[in-house]
């Protein structure tokens, strides 16, 4: 017993020594991963893509402009409370402090939005989180480019209109939304209600409770009501269950559109051939035929440094993690340029995000030509272009293909909603709008 006590005391005493080794200035990038729990099938590829790209920058270029990146993962299990604990634990990590948080969960994003602005750490909730954060005047510390859920919902409505032969044909059609019954899933409802009013289609919202393994009742209702189109805002195990259920009631897959978090290989593979033709939103290409991917294989996987499995590079969610890492690292590069130093802090990185411009030429330099849409962020617009395309699953070839152009969102619907919601946030939290001149 005494021996055990002594060992524990010794271990506790040496703890600060192990963790407190000082070295050259490192860019601390915490990642809130979820490799456990019901959302792990989606959390793992994203975390791998994000980590691999940044590790590749370290191996290939020695970091960003010579400053090495230090990735600090923290496991959240997609649980808000654990996410907050991770945030508190990592926000002051290292010499630089956390430079940017990528929460990858709408619940955690909502928790961190007020905290991060006080701690002066930018939040990059790429295409998720609070939609009205697109209003940079009220949310200076939050960035949700390249497009929000509301933009995406209006894009789906446009796609449906086009398939039906014109927006005026939407009148009298029935569109259902199957959504994760949480802050995340509820995001598009108001937009779709407005769109239903404008174009005269009937809208029905069908919630699915966490984690979404049981959806028989929902799909029975769809079989009874026979909506012309079904949209889905799902995540984790909910996606594959929904696609399997849709297949079992023989719902036409090419009339079933998932949000871009409901469109990865993990979601469609379990349904097999029946998933052929399923659609989802997208803002980047699938596949691994890009320079950046080749560099990742060469500098990481050939040396055994990769985070995931080699044959899963280029999956949809892997590429989503990669594109998030690319934009984040570009923002840090921009921050270094603006402030003329490599020793950037969270508040500098925020300036970098706000001045971020990644155009076609820059994408080409990064080895990602045609991989995603060009973006340009400004002080008042944190959503960026807001353009969304649709991708379709080809079950025979086992891959996703982009099947549409990039649509512009219907800003006449989303604009007033964003203004209204951000004004409500500002009023409730006594935030004053900043000026953007």
């Amino acid at each position, binding site marked *: 017993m005494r021996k055990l006590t002594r060992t524990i005391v010794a271990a506790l005493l040496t703890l600060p020594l192990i963790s407190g080794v000082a070295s050259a200035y490192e860019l601390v990038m915490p990642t809130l991963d979820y*490799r*456990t729990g019901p959302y792990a099938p989606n959390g793992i590829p994203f975390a791998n893509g994000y980590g691999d790209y940044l590790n590749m920058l370290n191996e290939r270029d020695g970091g960003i402009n010579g400053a090495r990146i230090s990735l600090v993962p923290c496991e959240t299990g997609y649980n*808000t*409370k654990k996410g907050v*604990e991770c945030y*508190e634990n990592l926000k002051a990590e290292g010499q630089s402090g956390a430079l940017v948080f990528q929460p990858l969960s709408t619940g955690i994003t*909502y928790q961190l939005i007020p*905290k991060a602005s006080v701690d002066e750490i930018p939040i990059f909730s790429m295409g998720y989180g609070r939609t009205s954060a697109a209003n940079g005047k009220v949310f200076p510390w939050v960035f949700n480019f390249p497009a929000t859920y509301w933009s995406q919902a209006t894009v789906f409505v446009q796609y449906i209109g086009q398939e039906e032969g014109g927006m005026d044909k939407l009148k009298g059609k029935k569109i259902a939304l199957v959504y994760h019954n*949480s802050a995340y899933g*509820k995001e598009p409802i108001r937009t779709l209600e407005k769109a239903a009013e404008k174009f005269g289609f009937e809208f029905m919202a069908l919630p699915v409770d966490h984690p979404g393994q049981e959806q028989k009742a929902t799909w029975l209702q769809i079989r009874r009501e026979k909506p012309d189109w079904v949209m889905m805002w799902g995540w984790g195990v909910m996606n594959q269950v929904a696609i399997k259920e849709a297949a079992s009631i023989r719902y036409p897959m090419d009339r079933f559109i998932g949000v871009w978090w409901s469109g990865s290989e993990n979601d469609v593979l379990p349904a097999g051939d029946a998933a052929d033709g399923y659609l989802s939103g997208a803002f980047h290409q699938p596949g691994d035929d890009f320079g950046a991917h080749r560099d990742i294989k060469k500098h990481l996987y050939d040396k055994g440094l990769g985070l995931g499995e080699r044959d899963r590079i280029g999956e949809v969610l892997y590429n989503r993690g990669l594109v998030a890492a690319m934009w984040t690292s570009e923002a840090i590069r921009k921050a270094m340029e603006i402030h003329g130093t490599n020793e950037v802090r969270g508040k500098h990185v925020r300036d970098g995000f706000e001045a971020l411009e990644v155009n076609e030429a820059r994408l080409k330099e990064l080895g990602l030509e045609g991989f995603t849409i060009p973006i340009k962020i400004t002080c008042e617009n944190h959503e960026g272009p807001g353009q969304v395309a649709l991708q379709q699953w080809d079950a025979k070839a086992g891959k996703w293909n982009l099947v549409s152009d990039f649509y512009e969102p219907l800003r006449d619907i989303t604009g007033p909603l964003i203004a209204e919601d951000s004004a409500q946030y500002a009023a409730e939290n006594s935030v004053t709008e900043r000026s953007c001149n």
Partner: protein
Amino acid sequence: MIYRETGQFKANYQDDQALFPIDQDRYVIFGILFITFAVVPYLLNQYWLNAILLPFLIYSLAALGLNILTGYCGQLSLGTGAFMAVGAFSVYKLMVAFPELGFIPLVLLSGLITAAVGTLFGLPSLRIKGFYLAVATLAAQFFLIWLFNKVGWFFNYSASGMINAPPMTIFGVIVTGPEANDVAKYYLVATFVAVFALAAKNIARGRIGRNWMAIRDMDIAAELIGVRPLIAKLTAFAVSSFYVGMAGALYFAVWLGSAEPTEAFDINQSFLVLFMIIIGGLGSVLGSFLGAAFLVILPIMLKNILVDGFGTDSALSAHIEIITVGVLIIGFLIVEPHGLARLWRIAKEKLRLWPFPY
């Protein structure tokens, strides 16, 4: 030798009935209070206060509440998460509507609202018992969460159904919202917990507490000796819900800052608090604290030791954490089915005889 009551004579009934009749107990309690209020806030950093001690204290209050109902009165409840949600949503609506009342009265008020709701859902306990009552409270869990998720009035029609705590001050110090002072938040919650733990200890040994325990031990016998089950059971539901409601209000307003009903107050929350009192010890104030510490602090410590100390991969350490906590729960319950509080009692008995046990 250390823990010996020899020589402590009581000359009147008042001394004999004191809350902590033995000197050593009293010193320990004063010591803990001194450390809690005078040492901890100045010794520990923001991470410790915000991410470890706040949830520990708030869960202790919730566990205390459930312990009153389940541990003292013997009514099994699976609705703790929902009652915490009632507290949270009440305090949210009150904070937005009547900010001028001040934060502490609003927390007490939301406790009272929860007490009313809890009493309502406690009515079935007069007819049904044991596992059947657990099912009835489970209905409360699902119904209330559904209600808060469905009816826009509760979350002021926000697009995502989330509620955000607006900033509020006590004596000019901000205690809710993102700019809140960490030390002030800690003091606020610690004061609530200390005051209401003392109250619980007193209620439990008084007439009401004895009625509860009589009902718990054998309700028919209790009825025969003159305990009225209606009053006893409903007061237990009311007092318990009052505690749980305040815990919910603090959980949302002071600790989390924003919450959505389906995640922050789901069924797992109810189970978590129930496990706290089972592991800590049913019918024991100390047990509520030990159980909360076991299920809140231990996993975080384990994670920090693994990840920061040994550099274990974050996902692997999450798995190790789940396994270890599970094994420890089973281990503790095999060694002592009556919980950690009972272990402490046995330790006290041993200390009393040490170093000459017979």
